């Protein structure tokens, strides 16, 4: 068999091993992976706990946003109703959409990834468990603070996509919009942290032998999902920053009277916003694909086609953002392109739907709750998909735009495509984490109430919209024929809510959290998450030879539990997992994993504190909170990247793996590359904004400073890029004193500071004012981005020197050193690019 890494795959034949495992091995595993108790629970980083908390928190936000929806439906039940005043209604619909999209849908699927992936891949945990914990706590604390703004009448009120000029200072003078901008920007950081964790986890911690063709369909979806987050979310992060800069400092990004353009916001928002729909849908579709196979007791029909559909959706969904802007007067040819892409994206979705139907037809499905939710979701999603193709037609979209037809369409897509599959997943996978399965009887009640409620609420809403009722109006006059359909929708909403209440009763009666003695594989799934597990995940890590290992090898659970596969113990006496190669999942090295820690929790609390306090404009406490967050992160990282005494460890079957490796094959390297892609995407979207504003309002643009400025600026960046590479080369030379490389790195960071300062000075020399033109505002935005990168580079190089002082930088290579090198070199390259672009275009070019 071809090898990807030079690993001898014949060693797989040594498994399952025959010899008895030593006494006490399992007890040691349990001791090492044990979770703290009492208040110490807050420091837990095991995915079993964090994943479940994450799911529970997301579900809490679903309930909260659902309550807002019910209040809105009561308000709209009758014309001229007086339940919610206009301003409160505005806040309710904004919070409903925002919370459902940002605090429920994306986190819920990310949470399921954290909970299911390690078990599905037979890893001990995801590669950065503390990052998962940080992402969860940041999301929970930040999300709750954000939601609490509603109780003070300070919640955002400009709709979940916050279009300026409505959300600019002129029309939204309070801090309501700031809550959205800072709160969502912050929650996106949490989502990106989770995405990095998932990408590295899926590509690098799969069980040996689980090559790409044998990877579970859910892992494929989570991989595409996380990559889409990395590409899409930087656009909304940039958008929120620009709008906040405009609101706080009066920089003119979106004001057409000063060279800005409000449509720039729409481009940035929807470049994120439409892929976001697929970001939500893909993991849910993968849950369905996994469940359909289990429920029908047959392999998924068209597995490869579904993988292709995920990949194709991941690409094509980035070509549809402007279909939300058909009514804005874009060039006709561009409108045609976006309309074509919007219809094309339905093809991959269709592939999945036909595959699910075929799998059910090929297998032997039973009448049970998850099957009902899956089929109900399928029917609902198809209806939403069909109305989606309708609104992809431009003339129809012009008629339906901003009406209740759109509200109906998006709820059909999201509830059918995500909410029903999620409830199916609750019933299907609850046996992994609860002593008792959920009740079939209550489950069926819950389904029928939710399904009927959904159709009763949203089917008439299509008519309400076609009869002309606009969305986001808090009331309407009698006599416009909207009363009947509105009343039906309100009744339906309460039926839907009743279904959710039945589910909550079921949870209260039957859900009992456990890690050890769970209810197990109630519906007979064939993938690895159904192996017997403890807090250490599986006792031993099996060699994978098929897509449904549990179906193909009925003895697998027993053999794994007996410790007769890889890593049946703790080879180093610490938490560890096997890192494998990305294509063929060949064992590469043993990753030593961090255990429970309070620092991710504190870092998350102070990060949330920074953003929330900043919103209420208490700048000094916000700054203190920000500094504390940075200190907590540094303290958390301080314990990591330490080689262990044994350079190699025996993981069973004659396989010896290194315990410390450096360079491009490490999980840390991969994570840094992904982080730099995120930053590069922010840069790319900034470049788009810069060119876009030039294209719209060239008359506001002025000549850049003298090109002579470029010489010292680019020299500074060249020095900042060259020194880290030199330092990395020197580190491996025994003759070099250990202080030289970190000091060179620090000098590189200082060179960055000098280059940014010169760049700033050059623009000040021609009197550029960000309040007066879009060009100046964008240049200041570029400088802000570069300044932030420079500050982080200073921090990282200072941290490197501190580690060096404590003897934690080791020859010939060191991961902390490598990662700092990558960051500083990237920062220098980015700075050079920005300087060249802004000084040479427009003008020289």
């Amino acid at each position: 068999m071809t090898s990807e890494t030079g690993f001898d795959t014949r060693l797989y034949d040594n498994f399952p091993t025959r010899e008895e495992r030593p006494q006490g091995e399992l007890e040691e595993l349990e001791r090492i992976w044990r979770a703290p108790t009492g208040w110490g629970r807050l420091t837990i980083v095991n995915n079993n706990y964090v994943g479940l908390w994450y799911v529970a928190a997301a579900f809490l936000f679903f309930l909260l946003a659902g309550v807002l929806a019910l209040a809105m439906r009561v308000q709209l039940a009758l014309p001229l109703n007086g339940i919610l005043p206009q301003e409160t209604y505005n806040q309710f619909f904004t919070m409903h959409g925002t919370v459902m999209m940002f605090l429920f849908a994306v986190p819920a699927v990310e949470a399921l990834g954290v909970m299911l992936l390690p078990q599905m891949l037979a890893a001990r945990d995801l590669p950065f468990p503390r990052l998962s914990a940080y992402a969860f706590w940041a999301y929970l604390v930040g999300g709750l603070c954000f939601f609490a703004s509603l109780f003070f009448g300070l919640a955002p009120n400009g709709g979940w996509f916050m279009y300026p000029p409505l959300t600019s200072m002129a029309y939204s003078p309070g801090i309501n919009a700031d809550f959205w901008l800072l709160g969502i920007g912050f929650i996106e950081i949490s989502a990106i942290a989770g995405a990095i964790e998932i990408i590295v986890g899926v590509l690098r911690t799969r069980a040996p032998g689980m090559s790409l063709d044998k990877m579970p369909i859910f892992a494929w979806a989570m991989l595409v999902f996380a990559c889409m987050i990395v590409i899409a979310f930087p656009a909304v992060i940039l958008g929120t920053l620009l709008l906040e800069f405009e609101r706080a400092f009066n920089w003119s990004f979106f004001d057409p009277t000063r060279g800005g353009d409000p449509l720039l916001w729409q481009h940035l928002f929807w470049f994120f916003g439409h892929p976001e729909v697929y970001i939500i849908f893909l993991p849910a579709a993968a849950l369905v694909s996994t469940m359909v196979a289990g429920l029908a007791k047959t392999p998924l029909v068209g597995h490869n086609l579904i993988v292709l559909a995920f990949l194709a959706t991941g690409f094509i969904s980035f070509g549809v953002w402007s279909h939300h802007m058909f009514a804005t007067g874009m060039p006709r040819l561009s409108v045609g392109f976006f309309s074509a892409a919007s219809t094309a994206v339905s093809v991959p979705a269709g592939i999945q739907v036909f595959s699910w139907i075929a799998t059910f037809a090929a297998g032997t499905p039973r009448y049970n709750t998850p099957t009902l939710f899956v089929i109900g979701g399928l029917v609902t999603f198809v209806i939403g998909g069909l109305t989606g193709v309708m609104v992809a037609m431009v003339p129809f979209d012009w008629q339906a735009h901003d009406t209740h037809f759109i509200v109906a369409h998006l709820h059909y897509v999201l509830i059918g495509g995500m909410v029903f599959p999620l409830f199916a997943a609750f019933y299907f996978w609850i046996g992994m984490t609860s002593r008792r399965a959920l009740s079939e009887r209550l489950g069926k009640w819950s389904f029928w109430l939710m399904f009927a409620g959904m159709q009763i609420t949203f089917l008439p809403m299509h008519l309400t919209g076609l009869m002309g009722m606009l969305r986001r109006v808090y009331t309407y006059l009698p006599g416009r024929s909207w009363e009947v359909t509105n009343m039906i929708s309100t009744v339906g909403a309460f039926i839907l809510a009743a279904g959710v209440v039945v589910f909550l009763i079921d949870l209260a009666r039957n859900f009992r959290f456990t890690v050890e003695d769970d209810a197990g594989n109630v519906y007979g799934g064939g993938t690895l998450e159904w192996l017997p597990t403890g807090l250490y995940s599986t006792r031993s890590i099996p060699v994978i030879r098929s897509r449904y290992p549990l179906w193909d090898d009925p003895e697998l659970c027993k053999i794994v539990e007996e410790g007769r596969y890889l890593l049946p113990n703790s080879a180093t006496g610490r938490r560890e997992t096997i890192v494998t190669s990305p294509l063929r999942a060949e064992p590469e090295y043993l990753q030593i994993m961090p255990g429970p820690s309070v620092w991710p929790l504190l870092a998350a609390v102070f990060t949330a504190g920074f953003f929330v306090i900043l919103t209420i404009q208490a700048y000094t406490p916000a700054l203190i909170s920000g500094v504390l967050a940075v200190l907590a992160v540094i303290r958390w990282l301080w314990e990591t990247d330490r080689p262990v005494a044994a350079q190699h460890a025996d993981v069973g079957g004659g396989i010896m793996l290194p315990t410390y490796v450096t360079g491009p094959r490490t999980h840390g390297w991969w994570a840094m590359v992904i982080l730099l892609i995120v930053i590069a995407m922010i840069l790319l979207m900034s470049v788009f904004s810069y060119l876009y504003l030039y294209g719209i309002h060239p008359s506001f643009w002025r000549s850049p400073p003298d090109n002579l400025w470029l010489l010292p600026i680019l020299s500074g960046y060249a020095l900042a890029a060259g020194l880290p590479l030199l330092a990395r080369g020197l580190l491996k030379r025994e003759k070099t004193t250990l202080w030289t490389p970190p000091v060179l790195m620090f000098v590189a960071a200082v060179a960055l500071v000098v280059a940014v300062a010169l760049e700033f000075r050059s623009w000040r020399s021609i009197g550029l004012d960000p309040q007066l033109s879009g060009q100046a505002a964008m240049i200041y935005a570029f400088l802000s981005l570069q300044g932030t990168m420079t500050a982080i580079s200073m921090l990282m190089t200072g941290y490197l020197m501190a580690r060096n002082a404590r003897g934690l930088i080791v020859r010939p290579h060191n991961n902390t050193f490598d990662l700092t090198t990558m960051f500083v070199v990237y920062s220098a390259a980015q700075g050079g690019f920005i300087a060249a672009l802004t000084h040479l275009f427009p003008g020289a070019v």
Partner: protein
Amino acid sequence: MRTWAYLLGGLVVWTVHFFGLYIFGSVFPQTTLARILSGLLTLAALAADAILLWRAGTASMAQAGREELGRWTDYLAALSAAISLIAVFWQGLPVLIA
């Protein structure tokens, strides 16, 4: 990276084609130049997809002695090129009719 580039080749062609069309349509709005450039790019993308499809398709059909992952990669690369071929063609139609 070579495997990933091969696997996703068709979809990368679609991406280049789509953003090319968007740039032409935005930089030269309502002009014949935009249509000509878009048409040329569409032809180039169709050619690239056809080459990818032919290469991956023939490799996928030459199954004898191939290992599982290799066959799977060829198959998926061919599918990706095929779906891209259709999508690029569809995406290029507004040049003729819009």
